[in-house]
Each structure stands twice: as structure tokens, then as C-alpha cells.
């Protein structure tokens, strides 16, 4: 199913769709309020945007600098061209450490690589330790939002899942009770895991350190208890200097959830005695995207999810309607670069309202890129479909005034003459749930000719 079909299904459950919209609007609203409490907010966005522009223009150099410094700090650095290489590298580290069970904090990058499935196929038990991620993992679902992975589920549904998987009291929906049950369940897993896997929010080139931001402290808990820390990082996550964190950390949490800062912003620089840190740097299409002039600045994204919360489409169609690892507006400009055919409906899942671009903390021109992807997609469509024919016909009409006039009066005439059953049949998508405008006796041009010429 493409986006419109999935969105229509999502909207069938009116009550749930309304709840989903209102829940995310609440987050959006919180972000709006908190961003206005920072007088230099727009300056911060501009600075962040420029730092990221600089990173993208000099990515090769910053990556080499990062690697050099990380190696000097005693971190083991791995480079992965694609998801397959990435997964093999991770599995290899696990096998060398004779590890059959890992804990993992939130990492959309590992979702992108389908790492969980790969490791499980190879006999490794993976436990997601972010509460939201653990919930969707119990359901064998991917996250429906990059910051709020289980935002599509209500607490009653979570209660049922926990009753089923963790044997909690049936019908007990109390969030504290449920969170506590999850905490006890996860604690066992934390204590047993020899290897902890995390994502990376920022890799600092000048120091070779990296920063992981979580609200639950689950990344830290996992890493400190394990002997080996594997951090998986997209190559675009580099920032030049540690001082730049002062810009990004102020923007990240405020944009994501309206908090002033994430609860845990942990810096990892070198392994403790007797322990290991590995970092896996993943390309997986990023270099290709960097080469696309119109789309390269999509790589500035810091994965705050603000564009999802603000998007009137995302709020009303849910993360799964996109069918891509990263849903919402940013996903709709990243995914076509990975698989144009599969994701061809995504750039059209937008009214081009521009809210995503205005909310973006690193000023990615998301809605402009949606427009540009539309141009690319129609070019890539080899067979001439109905829409492109209609558009060619329209261009013919609009470049020839006489044809336009004829077409217009025919259109108005047709609307008057056609029976209601045809005008509002299923063939006319406009008219299914909307009336057409009343047809005036004369067009403006007719009036102008009579009265002004």
C-alpha cells in the first residue's frame, strides 16, 4: 500500500486518529512555547545550520580527524559501506567476545540496517532498553516515530502487552506501575549483558569523543555494566568541536520534546581499564546523498523529530503510513534517495505547507526538497501515466489563451449540465466529501469585457 491508502486506513478509526493528532500536537505546542523562551533561538538555528553546512562541505577531513583522535583515545574504529557490512562488523565483535545477548539503547541507524533481525538470525538475543523501543520490540514492530517510538500506542495497549510479556496485573494501566515493571525486567538484562550497543548523537572531530543523549539513562546503564561498548554512528553525525555541543544540545531536546535539555548527555572518550569501545561509522547511501546538490543538506538532520510533531500529515496518518525507517517530512526527503520506487508516494504526502522547514533546528529546507523530489520522481516514471498526460494537456491549455478560455467555459458549462450523480460520483475524488463551488453565470473575464473594456 502507498501512503494515501495507509493514511485512509489510519483515519478510519476516527477516535484513535484524533487522539494521535492531539497527542503529537501537545508535544509540538510544548516545543513552540519553550523555543520562545530562548531569545536567541533563531540565531541558534542559524548557527547550527552553518556548522552543519561546514561539516558537509568538509566531511572527509572531519572524519579522518575524528578517526585519528578516537584511535589515539584507545577506541577501535570500523568503517561500514552499507548495512550488510555494518551488521557483519557488529556480529564479529560479539562473536570475538563470545556474546549471545546484548542490550541496546535507541539507535535509528540500527533500525535502518535491520540489525536486530540480523543478530537474532545469528543467535544473538537483542534487548532494546529504551522503554518505547522495548514496547514496540515486544510487538515485533519498528518504531513509529524516531524520538517517541511507541507514540501510536495508548497506555491500555501497553498494559495488555506487559501483561502478556511481563506478567503484570491485567487491566492495571497505571504508568508508574508499568514503568516499574519494565525497569525490573530490563535490570536483569542489563546485568547479564557483556556487550552494550548504543547509537551516537554527535561525534566530535577535535577530541575523538562521542555523545549519546537519552532521557532514561539506559545507554549509560548498559555501557557501564558491560565490558564492551559498540557505538553505531552515521558519518554525518560529526561536529567539528566540542564547543559546538553548546549549540546543538540546546536545540535538540527543546525541538524534540520541549524539554530544556535531555536528561543524560553522556560523553564517551576512551575505554575504562579492561574494557573496549568500538565505533562503527556507517555510510549506507549518505555519500550518494551528499553528491545530490538539491538534497545534500537533508544530511544536516539531528533526528529531533520536530518535523514529525508539527506535520499535519504525520499527526493524522501515523508513522507506519510512510513505510520507511524514518517517517514524516525528513523521512520523505531521505528515503527516496535510498529507494526511489518504493518511496515514490512520500514526497507527495505533503501540502508543502512549510511547517517542517520553519520548525527544523538546523534549518533544512524540507518542504522545498519535497517539491524537488516530486520533480525527480515524475522524471523517473518511465511509462506515461494518466497524471502526466493530464499535466501535459494542461500546459498546452495554459500557454494558449484561446484554448484556456474554451476549456474554462466548457468546464463551467459541464458542471452546470452534468447530473449530480456524475459530478459527485466516486470518479470525482474532489466531490466525494466536498461540494464543488457554485458555478457563476460569467467568468471574471466575461465581466471585465462587459464592464471595463
Amino acid at each position, binding site marked *: 500500500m502507498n501512503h494515501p491508502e495507509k493514511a485512509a486506513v489510519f483515519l478510519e478509526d476516527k477516535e484513535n486518529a484524533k487522539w494521535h493528532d492531539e497527542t503529537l500536537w501537545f508535544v509540538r505546542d510544548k516545543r513552540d512555547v519553550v523555543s520562545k523562551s530562548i531569545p536567541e533561538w533563531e540565531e541558534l538555528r542559524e548557527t547550527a545550520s552553518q556548522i552543519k553546512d561546514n561539516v558537509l562541505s568538509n566531511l572527509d577531513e572531519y572524519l579522518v580527524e575524528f578517526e585519528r583522535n578516537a584511535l589515539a583515545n584507545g577506541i577501535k574504529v570500523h568503517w561500514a559501506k552499507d548495512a550488510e557490512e555494518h551488521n557483519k562488523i557488529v556480529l564479529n565483535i560479539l562473536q570475538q567476545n563470545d556474546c549471545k545477548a546484548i542490550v541496546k539503547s535507541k539507535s535509528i541507524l540500527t533500525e535502518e540496517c535491520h540489525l536486530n533481525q540480523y543478530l537474532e538470525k545469528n543467535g544473538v538475543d537483542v534487548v532494546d532498553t529504551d522503554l518505547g523501543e522495548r514496547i514496540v520490540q515486544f510487538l515485533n514492530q519498528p518504531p513509529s516515530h524516531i524520538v517517541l517510538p511507541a507514540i501510536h500506542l495508548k497506555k491500555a495497549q501497553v498494559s495488555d502487552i506487559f501483561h502478556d510479556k511481563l506478567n503484570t496485573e491485567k487491566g492495571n494501566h497505571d504508568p508508574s506501575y508499568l514503568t516499574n515493571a519494565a525497569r525490573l525486567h530490563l535490570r536483569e538484562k542489563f546485568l547479564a549483558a557483556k556487550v552494550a550497543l548504543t547509537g551516537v548523537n554527535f561525534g566530535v572531530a577535535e577530541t575523538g569523543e562521542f555523545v549519546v543523549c537519552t532521557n532514561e539513562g539506559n545507554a549509560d546503564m548498559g555501557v557501564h555494566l558491560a565490558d564492551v561498548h559498540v557505538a553505531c554512528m552515521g558519518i554525518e553525525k560529526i561536529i567539528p568541536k566540542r564547543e559546538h555541543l553548546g549549540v546543538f544540545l540546546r536545540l535538540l531536546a527543546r525541538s524534540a520534546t520541549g524539554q530544556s535539555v535531555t536528561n543524560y548527555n553522556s560523553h564517551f572518550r576512551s575505554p575504562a581499564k579492561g574494557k573496549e569501545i568500538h565505533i562503527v561509522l556507517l555510510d549506507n547511501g549518505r555519500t550518494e546523498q551528499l553528491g545530490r546538490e538539491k538534497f545534500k543538506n537533508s544530511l544536516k538532520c539531528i533526528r529531533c523529530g520536530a518535523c514529525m510533531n508539527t506535520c499535519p500529515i504525520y499527526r493524522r496518518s501515523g508513522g507506519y503510513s510512510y513505510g520507511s525507517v524514518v517517517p514524516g517530512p525528513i523521512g520523505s526527503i531521505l528515503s527516496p534517495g535510498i529507494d526511489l520506487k518504493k518511496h515514490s508516494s512520500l514526497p*507527495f504526502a505533503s501540502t508543502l505547507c*512549510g511547517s517542517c*522547514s520553519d520548525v527544523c533546528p538546523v534549518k533544512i529546507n524540507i518542504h522545498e526538497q519535497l517539491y524537488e523530489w*516530486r520533480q525527480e520522481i*515524475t522524471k523517473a516514471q518511465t511509462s506515461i501515466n494518466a497524471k502526466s498526460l493530464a499535466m501535459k494537456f494542461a*500546459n498546452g491549455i495554459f500557454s494558449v*489563451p484561446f484554448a484556456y478560455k474554451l476549456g474554462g467555459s466548457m468546464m463551467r458549462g459541464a458542471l452546470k449540465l452534468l447530473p449530480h450523480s456524475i459530478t459527485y460520483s466516486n470518479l470525482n475524488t474532489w466531490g466525494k466529501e466536498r461540494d464543488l*463551488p457554485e458555478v*457563476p453565470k460569467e467568468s471574471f473575464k466575461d465581466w471585465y469585457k462587459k464592464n471595463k473594456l
Partner: protein
Amino acid sequence: MHQNKNIALFLPCYVDQFYPNVGIATIQLLEKLGCKVSFPMDQTCCGQPMANAGYERDTVGTAKHFIKTFKDFDYIVAPSGSCVLHVKEHSPSIQGFETEQAAMHHKIFELTEFLVDVLRVGPIKGSYPHKVGFHSSCHGQRGLRLSASSELNEPPFNKAKQLLEGLEGLEWVELDRKDECCGFGGTFAVTEEALSIQMGKDRLADHQKNNVEILAGGDMSCLMHMQGISSRNNNGVKFKHIAEILNEVIR
């Protein structure tokens, strides 16, 4: 100063066909404000529906025709933020007309923008005793920056409000979600029909919840979409383009 200027009225094609009153109101309003306005009869469409559907490259003929039709005017004014934004940002560049096309971007204005920034009319005097809810079209608001956007940390402003707020008896209604999209979106209205309808219903509900009597706007496309839903559900809200309101109050 503007009395000596040659001003062209540019009407979106669907306004010409379906909403002649909006065109008439725009031309009469500008004339009342002392402008000399003419309507080039050869004008057609700006090409936006095609470009937004992914066929910008097929609008070369349309864009060229647009430049030829309007290039000799001092100003081009349209009662539509969306079409103006399209001409400025998404018209393909036309070989042989580079200079004219670049110049055009500085002389084409959406109506309220023209009234406030070029004509510099202050709050308009007159009486309009109604509760008015204003729908800022996204292309007008976030594209042309006709009003502050709720995502940005910027001082509040709204060009339409500036023009309307001086009217006696007019109550400007603040909405719960002040600048959410109505879901029209051109071809989106049919390709993503279910979402488009839901967004339109939600927008209407916000106006109704706040007891709006007249839902006004600067883009008839958004209003046509919401009016279509409103009329299907018989919910009695009246729709007006801001040009119609201003033309009605200025004698």
C-alpha cells in the same frame, strides 16, 4: 506615487472561472485606493498545479506566456499568496527572458502585501460588525511571510489583520491552532483525499468552536476546499476573500 503606475491584476485561473466576485472586488478595491489597474486579457495560469505535481519542466510554455503577458507592467497584483509564491519560486527559468523574469520577482505582490508594503495603507476605516476568523494560507504565511509563523521565534505580525483590525465592530477571532494547514494542497486534495478532508474538517471545527461567523482568507483555493466541506455538512459558516470584505467597507 502609485497613481501613475501601471498595475496589472493577475487572477488565479480558478478564481477567473469560479470566483469572479473576488476578481471584481480586487479591481474595485484597488481603484478606490487610487490605483490604475488593468487586467491583461491574455493571461492564463501560473503553472502551479503542474509544478507541484512534479511537472515543473512542462510549465515552460506557461511560464513564458506569463512573462510576456505581464513584463511591461510596473506592478503585478494577485489576490492569492499561493500563485504569487509560485511565480517567484517555482517558475522554470526561461531562456531569453532572464532579465524580465528576475525583474518580475520584485514587482509581483499578493494583495494584502501590496496594500501594506507598497501602498502603505493604514488600518482601513469602515464598519464590519462580524466575528471574523482568518485562514492564512501556508504559501502566503510561510512562503511570502505575510504573517508570523507559530514555529518561529519572531514578533507577531499579520498583514491581513493590520488591514482589518481598524474596522468598527469587527472581532478578530484567535484560533486554537492559529496556523495549521487546511489540507487543500493542490493535487494533494485528490491524491491524498482522506487526509485532505480530515485536515479541512479539523480546520473548520476550530473556527466553529471559536464561534466564527465569517471565515476569511487571502487564498480562494483554501477557502474553496473548506467551503466545499462546510457546504456538504450544512454548517452555515460564511466564506469571504479579504478583498471582498475590504471592498465592501470602503465606500
